[in-house]
């Protein structure tokens, strides 16, 4: 397996009281190379916490995470992350933001990568802008380009579309899917939106509410290439959606 998450548990110490809040209660799943695996679950169930552990900026209490059989012990450039809140550096221009994770590369190659990935998210011409001069959707595309510029083995995406409007989100979904397909990236894609999960992924990991466990792992075999509108009209789409609703406890 390319990415292996094995029995990961995590609790937070509540600062004032002595009690702890258990968030992740033994999460296991895996992802093959080139697969897009969605993680879906109710708000507050620990999706962000899980992604942060995968990124290496939060430490699990127990359990292990392996990428190509190497244990994850901290952050590293084999993983890129797209944040729910964009998290661009406001003092840097767009090209500086995109190039910030690849400072070790020779200048020439760095430039080329910045160019490549800005083009991939259709942001040529905005190199010298600052983040606040861009719309939310554009900012998130910069976030995607910044993560992709690392050319990471695994791309971690945490509710990338939660902070953009519905229309922009639909366009971004198509763009993201194209980027994933073109680069054959392995992606862990967190969302709380069923349609997004179905549309974007090859597999869907359904989490319960806190303390969260994996309820079910659904295969998503809708034909590719997918296009937002067409894919949604397919009968298989409706079936998968019903299964997912049941799994999330929204229907019986």
């Amino acid at each position, binding site marked *: 397996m390319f990415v292996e998450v094995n029995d990961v548990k995590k609790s937070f110490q509540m600062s004032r009281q002595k009690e702890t809040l258990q968030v992740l209660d033994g999460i296991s799943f895996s992802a093959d190379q080139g697969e897009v695996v969605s993680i879906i679950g109710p708000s507050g169930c620990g999706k962000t916490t899980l992604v942060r552990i995968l*990124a*290496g900026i939060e430490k699990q209490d127990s359990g292990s995470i392996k990428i190509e059989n190497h244990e994850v012990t901290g952050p*590293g450039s084999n993983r890129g992350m797209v944040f729910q*809140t964009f998290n661009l*550096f406001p003092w840097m221009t767009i090209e500086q933001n995109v190039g910030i994770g690849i400072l070790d590369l020779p200048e020439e190659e760095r430039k080329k990568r910045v160019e490549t990935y800005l083009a991939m998210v259709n942001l040529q011409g905005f190199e010298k802008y600052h983040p606040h*001069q861009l719309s939310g959707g554009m900012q998130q595309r910069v976030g995607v380009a910044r993560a992709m510029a690392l050319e990471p083995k695994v791309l971690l995406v945490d509710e990338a579309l939660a902070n953009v409007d519905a229309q922009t989100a639909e366009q971004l979904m198509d763009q993201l899917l194209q980027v994933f397909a073109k680069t054959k990236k392995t992606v862990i894609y967190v969302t709380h939106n069923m349609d997004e999960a179905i549309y974007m992924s090859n597999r869907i990991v359904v989490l319960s509410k806190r303390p969260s466990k994996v309820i079910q792992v659904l295969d998503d075999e809708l034909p590719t290439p997918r296009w937002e509108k067409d894919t949604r009209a397919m009968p298989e789409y409706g079936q998968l959606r019903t299964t997912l609703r049941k799994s999330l406890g929204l229907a019986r």
Partner: protein
Amino acid sequence: MASNRALQILQNKWVATILTFVIFVVVWQIVGSYILNPLFISYPTAIASAFARLAVSTGQYSLIGPTVPTLLETFEGFGLSILIGLPLGLLLGISRTLDISLNPYVNALYVTPRIAMIPLIIIWFGIGEPAIVFTTFFLSVFPMIVNTYVGVRDISKSMLDTAEVFSIRGLRRFRYVILPATFPFIIAGLRLSIGSALVGAVVAQMILSLSGLGYILTAFGDFFQTAQLMAVIIELMIIGVIMNYGIDLLGKRFADWKVTERGYR
């Protein structure tokens, strides 16, 4: 219609500014010369002529000559404050250990009326330029330290997390994240610091010197030359405004992203 038009003109920023200024000066002129004894705060025409006379005269009791030591001592103290306060503020913000061990003293001194230290400074340095520069430094270093420190502490967790995810560590973290994120606070620190430095230089000269704008302020006061006194105060005001403007320019040049982000201007 006509009143509408008048209202529009009044809402123009410059018209409003100039109009209030004219009203202010006229009222001051009348109150200062006819209602109050001119010794109190004098009045605009007297101050203007005192200003003009002092501006062209030379020697100890003029506007130009005494400005030199005042500015020199202000900038010497301010320069020392940057050299010492800026790195110290950054270090306090970055290092937990330093913060815990030094911050109580910095805070205590920050809230102490620092002018109370002048007698002690006289014991250390005697009377003269070193004592003045030290007073200036002592007054202006704390705003520098504290603002820089607060700036580092104000960096959001999400920015630091992001730096971590993209493996920006050590010196790079300082250069690409901490320093630029703190920059707007450093500018605020510089602004407060240079203002305090000017206060420090003037107060110290009032007590410790026989030259400088601080000294002639006391001298004019002793002789009840209110118009001349006011002329010096106005000069100090102009100096303060120019210094502030300089810092503003610096801020706009180097922390432009913050200025525009807040929709300032």
